[in-house]
Structure formats: C-alpha cells, structure tokens
C-alpha cells in the first residue's frame, strides 16, 4: 500500500516537472526541470524493479542530455534574456 502510494507520488512528480519544463519561461530552469522529470522516471523504474533501465535513464536522461542541453543553451546565448 505504502509502496504504491510512493510510486503514485513519484509519477505525479514526473508529470509536474514535465509540465514545468514546458511552461517555465527561463530556458535554464526549464532544462533543469526536464532533467528532474528524467530523474523521477529513473526512481520510478527502481521502484518498479527495473534497476537496469533506471541506471541508463539516470545517467543518460538526467545527467548527459541535461548537460548537453545546458551547453547548447550557453552557446546560443538564449539563456540570458
């Protein structure tokens, strides 16, 4: 019961950070929010007993792609509005 509730909270967090990533004005904050969505997804994979997928999601989705996007934002100067 408690575990199911926890999974639901995590899934709600994925939704909230996904919506924030779309609606936030600042590109930096939006990208961090998108990375957060990936991180919550990774946590939900762990809770659903798929640690292999969770590891890839945490490293690639939350870590590397966020980093690449942040570098891209810095290069295009769109971060400073």
């Amino acid at each position, binding site marked *: 019961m408690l575990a199911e509730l926890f999974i639901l909270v995590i899934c709600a967090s994925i939704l909230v950070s996904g919506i924030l990533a779309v609606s936030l004005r600042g590109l930096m904050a939006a990208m961090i929010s998108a990375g957060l969505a990936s991180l919550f997804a990774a946590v939900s994979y762990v809770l659903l007993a798929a640690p292999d997928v969770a590891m*890839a999601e945490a*490293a690639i989705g939350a870590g590397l792609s966020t*980093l690449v996007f942040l570098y891209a934002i810095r290069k295009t100067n769109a971060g400073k509005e």
Partner: protein
Amino acid sequence: MKRFFGAVAVLLFGVVLWGVATGYAERGAPSELAMRYLAEVPADLGAANVVTGILITYRGFDTLGEVAVLFMVAATVGLLLGGESRGTSAASRPASRPPSELVSNGAEVVLPVIFLFGTYVIVNGHLSAGGGFQGGAVVASAVGLMVLARPSAVLDHGFLSIAESLAGVLYVATGILGLILAGGFLDSRFLPPGVFGAFVSAGAIPLISALLGIKVGAELSVIIDRFRS
C-alpha cells in the same frame, strides 16, 4: 491555423493514448516468454542477471544496432561541432565563469567513486543490475562532471577515438567468434560458463560487456566534450 493543427494533433494523441489507458490491465504474473527466459537464461548462459544475458546474447544484434546508432550520433556531432574548435587549446577558449567551490570540491570527493561505480557496473553486468551500456553511461556522466568542475581540462580525443574504435572492432570480432565457435553471431557461449555467480563466469558476457562499456563511455565523453568546446 497553427492553433487548429495543434489542437488536432493533441486530440489525435488523446485518442491513441485513451485506447492504451483504457486497455491497460496490470499483469499478475510474468508472461510465458518472461517465464521461459527466467527459467532458461541462468542455466543456458550462466548469467545471474537475466536482463544482461538477454541484451548481450539473445538480443546481441539489437545491442550492436544501438551501439551503431550511438556511433553515428558521435560522428555527426564531431562533423558539425568538431571543425570550428580544431586547434583551439584550453588557453584560447573564451574565459568562462569558474565553477563554484561546491562543484569543484564536491567533484574531487565524488569523481573517483563514480568512476569506480561505473567500472563496477560494467564488469559485474552478468551478476548484478547493469552492464556495458549502463556502466559506460555512468562513466561518461563522471567525465561530464569532471569537465564541469575543471573547465580547463583537455580530453585526449585521439586516445578516446582509438579506444572506441578498437572496442568496436573487438566487439564485432567477438560476435564473429561466436558465429564460428558457438550457435550464432554474438553468441557468448563459446567460452565455458564457469561457476554460476562467480566473477569469471557466464561465457563471453563479461568480455562483451567490458568492450561495450569502453565504447559507450568513450563515445559519450567525446560528445560532451564537443559540446563544451
């Protein structure tokens, strides 16, 4: 007009996802195929981690495809971003804000642990969760933290490219070895399965896993560095 098409697209997505959502029922027990894999993989391949056994042996060709896609991404990024930064050393780069003390000091503590964990995930893929792909990604994210903490650090692209190509060639060579000595392309059973659960066991799975880890880690590191410079 744009708004109208947007609404239509959202509506279509809604129709598709509505069908998925209403047709969803939680699985009480693993499917027949999953049960078969769970029963046969440990005995057949000698791998305690069924997922890695499937990914590297039964679905080895798919993994090769994934690695090929990643290689194409790395090559494209190098083509698009590599030209302008060629010849620029760390000194000639535009001076960026130095990293905060938290990042630079924290990285010194955490970096060795992340590298160690990545290596552990790679070489223990057949025993515990993980494998070459995941471990390589962990190592590459550690490289990402390193370049964040030390903007002046220079990655040796030549070495990384050689390591990556060598790992790729050896990976395919291992696959062909499986074709000759065992059941088919990328069959890991041409080495003895060994004692179940031991570090050196599960045929060629640890070997393939290590090669994959080197390849993925080097590729992703180069991609990050291309974006940085």
